[in-house]
């Protein structure tokens, strides 16, 4: 499954077009992120399928920001699925990555993963591996939207009550790059208790995901309380789409909220 990716990365490295390729590898019995710099050292490269397709994905875009901040003049390759590509596009609009310095190498997700993710576009624009799977709409959102308001609220409160305030949803998120985080603002959310103030903690984060969330689902996977955060943010994305006709990573240009933000600054 990795042959075409390896071939492409080897070419990019050998031609000197990229300084390194940020992908995944199997090392010490763990699948994890890895920066490949040597064209002859791609043996351990994997795509992140341990037991099920895509069960070992990592926020490669976020890690790329870390590297690019220290090496802004270098060009890097990065492994992208559909969601990661949406992430890259959105990060470009927020000036977190320079599109001239990033070369994405795409893989399309298999149907099983597309189904599990309820992904609207389970493939990047260009890919060297895999086949286009069918797109899926958000059954989980439809399901919870079917509840009446009171039951919906109760259901979310029950989920939030388990939160152990690890901030993992934020820390794993490729779209969370702010220097100061509202989740840590004492005047918004009282600190020092478990669960954190609910639902405000989760709603503050949900609001900040508006116009940003690219629906990669890593927040959901990282949550020690198994809170269905992806469903929540999918709903937020739907609302933004309805109101502004904008969906991050799918639509071209800047988020309406990011334009609002800069207008407010002026």
């Amino acid at each position, binding site marked *: 499954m990795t042959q075409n990716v390896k071939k492409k990365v080897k070419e990019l490295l050998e031609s000197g077009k990229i*300084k*390194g390729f940020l992908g995944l590898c199997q*090392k*010490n*019995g*763990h*699948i*994890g*992120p*890895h*920066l490949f*710099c040597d064209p002859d050292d791609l043996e351990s490269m994997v795509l992140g399928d*341990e037991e099920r397709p895509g*069960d*070992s*994905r*990592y*926020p490669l875009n976020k*890690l790329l920001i*870390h*590297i690019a901040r*220290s*090496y802004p003049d*270098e060009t890097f390759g990065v492994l992208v699925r559909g969601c990661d590509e949406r992430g890259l596009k959105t990060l470009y609009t927020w000036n977190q990555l320079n599109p001239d310095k990033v070369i994405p190498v795409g893989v399309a997700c298999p149907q099983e993963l597309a189904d599990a993710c309820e992904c609207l576009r389970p493939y990047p624009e260009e890919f060297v591996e895999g086949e286009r799977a069918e797109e899926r709409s958000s059954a989980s959102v439809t399901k919870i939207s079917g509840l009446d308001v009171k039951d919906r609220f109760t259901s979310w409160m029950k989920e939030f009550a388990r939160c*152990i*305030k*690890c*901030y*993992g949803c934020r*820390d*794993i998120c490729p779209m969370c790059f702010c220097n100061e985080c509202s989740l840590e603002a004492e005047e918004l959310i009282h600190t020092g208790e478990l669960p954190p103030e609910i639902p405000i903690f989760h709603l503050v984060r949900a609001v900040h995901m508006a116009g940003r969330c690219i629906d990669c689902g890593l927040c959901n*996977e*990282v*949550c*020690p309380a198994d809170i269905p955060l992806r469903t929540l943010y999918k709903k937020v994305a739907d609302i933004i789409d309805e109101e502004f006709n904008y969906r991050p990573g799918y639509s071209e240009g800047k988020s309406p909220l990011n334009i609002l933000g800069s207008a407010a600054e002026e």
Partner: protein
Amino acid sequence: MDYRTVPTTCTYCGCGCNFFLEVLDGRIIGTIPSKSGPANQGKLCIKGWHVHQFVQSPERLTRPLLRKNGNLSEVSWDEALDYTASRLKEITSAHGSDSAGFFASAKLTNEENYLIQKFARAAVGTNNVDHCARL
């Protein structure tokens, strides 16, 4: 440029969560939970997510200290180790092996705990070795 992700095990509680320490040019810049960790399956608590912060705290001890005229002063490793060994030798020669005691540690690795108890038992000759199992 040297960017590495190193899989390891958390130093806080007994869950034994696995994560990658993200290292750029010799500095740890982040912690990434490992999806392959049997206990944590790609998840972490708040302490785990920030475990890299204390490692590079400016408050870390970086040089051996020896008490001179009542104050702890920086000394070379040789001086600190010579002093420790010679004082241990003096005290146990004068008062017997059981006049020394050793705290092993639930924060050390297995290998280091093995070594400290072996040192106490075989080198010093006492079973006075314990750690915070009870705390």
